[in-house]
């Protein structure tokens, strides 16, 4: 029960922060007209919504059929969210590999994105926090790639990674 509560709380936090970032980026697009913000915002929005879907799978005790359908949705839609976010780092069409290829590839691309973020970000602690978030998410995918039954732990790692990124980008600077 405690495990479920921790899982649900982490996912709610990850979802809220992700949707907050998405809305802020969309406002930025509306104010500046910078179109490159749209895929990035859409990626965070989709990811945020999917975090809620993951709670439904883990906590809601759904029927076997609903569980399979939601897992199917997560497995297909989450890579699309990654692709939209990673495009800002890798450029198109590289992120499409995340959608078309399995978990191991997602882990690899997320790892590379973490390295790119580390090289591009100036100032501490963001320089290490943001890449760390990408690497934790990559770890979640790597775990699921090696052991498909470890969905709950992979999900936990993915939420923790997203929270790390979201906290890094939304925390107030001194």
């Amino acid at each position, binding site marked *: 029960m405690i495990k479920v509560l921790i899982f649900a709380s982490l996912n709610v936090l990850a979802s809220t922060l992700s949707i907050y970032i998405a809305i802020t980026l969309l406002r*930025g697009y509306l104010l500046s007209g910078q179109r490159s913000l749209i895929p990035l915002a859409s990626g965070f929005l989709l990811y945020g919504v999917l975090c809620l879907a993951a709670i439904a799978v883990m906590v809601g005790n759904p029927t076997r059929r609903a569980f399979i359908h939601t897992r199917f949705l997560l497995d297909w839609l989450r890579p699309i969210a990654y692709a939209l976010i990673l495009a800002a780092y890798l450029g198109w069409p590289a992120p499409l590999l995340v959608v078309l290829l399995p978990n191991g590839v997602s882990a690899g691309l997320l790892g590379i994105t973490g390295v790119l973020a580390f090289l591009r970000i100036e100032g501490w602690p963001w320089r290490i926090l943001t890449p760390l978030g990408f690497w934790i998410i990559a770890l979640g995918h790597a775990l699921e790639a090696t052991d498909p039954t470890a969905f709950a732990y992979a999900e936990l790692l993915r939420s923790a990674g997203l929270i790390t990124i979201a906290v890094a980008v*939304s925390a107030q600077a001194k």
Partner: protein
Amino acid sequence: MKYRSRLSIIHDILASLYEGPKRVSHLARDANLPVDRLNRILEALEADGMVGRDGPLIYMTERGRDAFLEIKRVKRILDRLGIK
């Protein structure tokens, strides 16, 4: 020369106007933009109600001030994601 996104350019213009009204030439120097390009952007910002003109001076409206704070927040997110 470093590439600047449209968001960064608007941020730099509004950051300069946040200090107080400016002439176009002064603003062009602060935002590091050619005057003709700055004028095109100012026209768009004026149409959106973010800036106004008072004779030769360009000033920031209340809406512009709110927009500036919001753009600052977006820029901070992009900087910390490592996206220019």
